[in-house]
């Protein structure tokens, strides 16, 4: 499938992460091969990664450990909450919707529908 520049640029990030399907990745590569401008744009994100040194994992783990320990000493733990601490806005919205529903229901002409004895449906009006 041939891609134009706009379509190719929209998927550069996914291409860089290696999350595109092989067919789509192939079409992005084909476009990059033929378009110098897109190649230049994508260069920072799709440039080949240098292979890690053999002790990379160990160094990364040590660095993370020291950083985490330092951060834990420096700041109190931040709890990631699914819910805002203040639920009053949710409660107000719920109350407003309920009041609205009741107000709508309260007003107007009562329904004329009476399935068991509908004279009009049977063509017997009045």
């Amino acid at each position, binding site marked *: 499938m041939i891609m134009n520049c706009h379509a190719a640029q929209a998927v550069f990030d996914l291409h860089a992460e290696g999350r595109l*399907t092989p067919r789509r990745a192939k079409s992005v590569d084909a476009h990059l091969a033929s378009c110098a401008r897109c190649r230049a744009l994508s260069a920072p994100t799709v440039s080949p990664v240098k292979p890690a040194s053999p002790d990379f994992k160990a160094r990364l783990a040590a660095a993370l450990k020291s950083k985490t320990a330092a951060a834990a000493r420096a700041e109190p733990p931040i709890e990631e909450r699914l819910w805002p601490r203040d639920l009053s806005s949710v409660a107000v919205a719920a109350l407003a919707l309920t009041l609205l529903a009741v107000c709508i229901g309260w007003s107007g002409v009562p329904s004329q529908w009476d399935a068991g004895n509908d004279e009009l449906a049977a063509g017997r*009006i009045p």
Partner: protein
Amino acid sequence: MNTPSPESAHRLGLTALLVTAFALPLAFLTNTYDSTAIKFTLLQWGALTMAFAWLWQGVSRGRFQVSVSSWSVLLPALAYGAWMIVRLATAPHALASFPGFLSQLIMLVSFLAAFLEFSGARSASRFALLTVSSCAIVCLYGLAQALGLDPLLWKGAFGSGPLGARVFSTLGNPPLCASFIAVAVPVALTFALDPDTPRPLRLGALITAPLAVFVAILTGSAPGMAAVAVSCLPYALILPSTLRTRAALKSAGLALLLATIAGAASFTLEARGRQTWSYTNRFRAAMVGAELRMLAERPLVGLGPGSFSVHFPRFRPADIIRLQGAHSSLVETPELPALGVAVELGAVGAALWLWMFAAALSVGARGARALRRAGATAESVYAAGFTAAAAGGLAASHLVFSQSPGAQGWLLWPLAGMASGLAPLACRRAAVSVYPLPISEDIRRALYAPGLLGLAALTIIPGLWLRSQVDLNTAIYYAKTGRYDEALSRLERAYPGSPNYCLSIYFRGNVLAAQNKHKEALAAYELLQTHAPDFILVHALKGRSHALLGDWTAAADERARQARLDPLDMANLVAWSEAARAAGRLDQARAAAAQAEALDADDPRVRLQIAANNLIERRLATQDQRRRHNGRNVAKKPR
């Protein structure tokens, strides 16, 4: 123009889904002809906004994407939607079928929106919170009804129940109220299991679940309670097997206890025979028989989406007419939703429907296990709980009674969508199928204004249809009080596509007939028949107008057609006999009178018809004898 970000589009869609979940069970409007009209309008607005938000998000990102693993659910869902659209375009009576089709399309859009965009523990927990909140309000209002404290005009509308007045809350009737509770109870139990939810909210959900079961018992509907019992069982099975935690086991035990209470109450009430005719096993059996005959007419492609009520009069068994005791039933929804889909969309549509739900539920259950293993506790709880709630609702609608229309039927779809949509979260960096837009950002930005205008224009249409419903209700009020001209002006304002468009034309014919404008009434009935050929009593009413205009042959034909559709309508059989006799079809008149005599031989109208037919027969015989006698005399006359 500042173009909104994909995140704000996401928030818009999520808000639409949450508002729909909360407001749908609660909304009612007494000045419409049908109490579910406002709910249908809300669904249309909600689905439109969700679809727009998804499109808007994709356009602003410059691409649409789904994870590759999603295709196992997405493929049958999209194929099902495409098949529905193809069948609507190719089936007859598209306008009369349109509201039913739209309702099914809205369900599918809600499923897809929940599946594609709103799956995540945060969205799921908010969805659960709002569903449980609306269930709690339904229950509190239901309790007020049971205690006789209902301030609205329908106080005590369904008689007395096990304790005080029968409860139906804001859901239209007691079985519908119980069936909403049947879907909401597993959602409440799921919400109470979420470890990330604040404790007061979890406690509230834990209180709501048994309270809801108590209110379901107060509905006095044995099938409704059975639906609650059936819908809790999948929860009790799925939760402990997927989550494997002590809390899940306790929650499953509570579900089992609630199912036992609801089931026992259902059996007790059933033994006391407190059932509405439309929820009896006899009714279900007769409906299923009729549906199988409908399916046999077009087994592969079906009769067309939303067309069940258009075609049903041809297949309605006499047993259902006997149960209804009336000849004016308007709305017929199929029993057994899967069979209903097969009737409307054929074997092809039913296979896609089953494939879609089977895929969604199995992906949801497997996803719950994968999420648990990945350490995503909240996500695994919602995946398992929503899968169980959707499975329970589907089981109840097949084993007890159909829950396809309204809030209870709608809830199944986003629940199934969210449950299956949570599964891909177990592998966050999975491969994606991406569809980039081959247009520049400037053009994409320029699309927002027309897009918003298009959405605004589309949201007006459900409002106009709702106004048609209010107009219809007001017109009936005018007609019943003899203000026919005002009634006609209201009925003429009905918009095509409105759920009561056909009914408006039908009533227009009736009002014109009441004004003795029989030619105009016939024109209205004929227009109606282009959309729905056998609508309610249209043949009988056409027969009456033809008779009043002196066209007895046409009157007899219409009455005969009505008698084929409804062989138990005594008034029609008598009128058929009269019309056929006046048209000189004595054999047909005698057949009609014999059919009426079989129904009630002592009915004075029947005796009169038989006597009149006999009299005419004797007169004809005398005339014939005289003619033959005269003929013989002529033959003998000497030249």
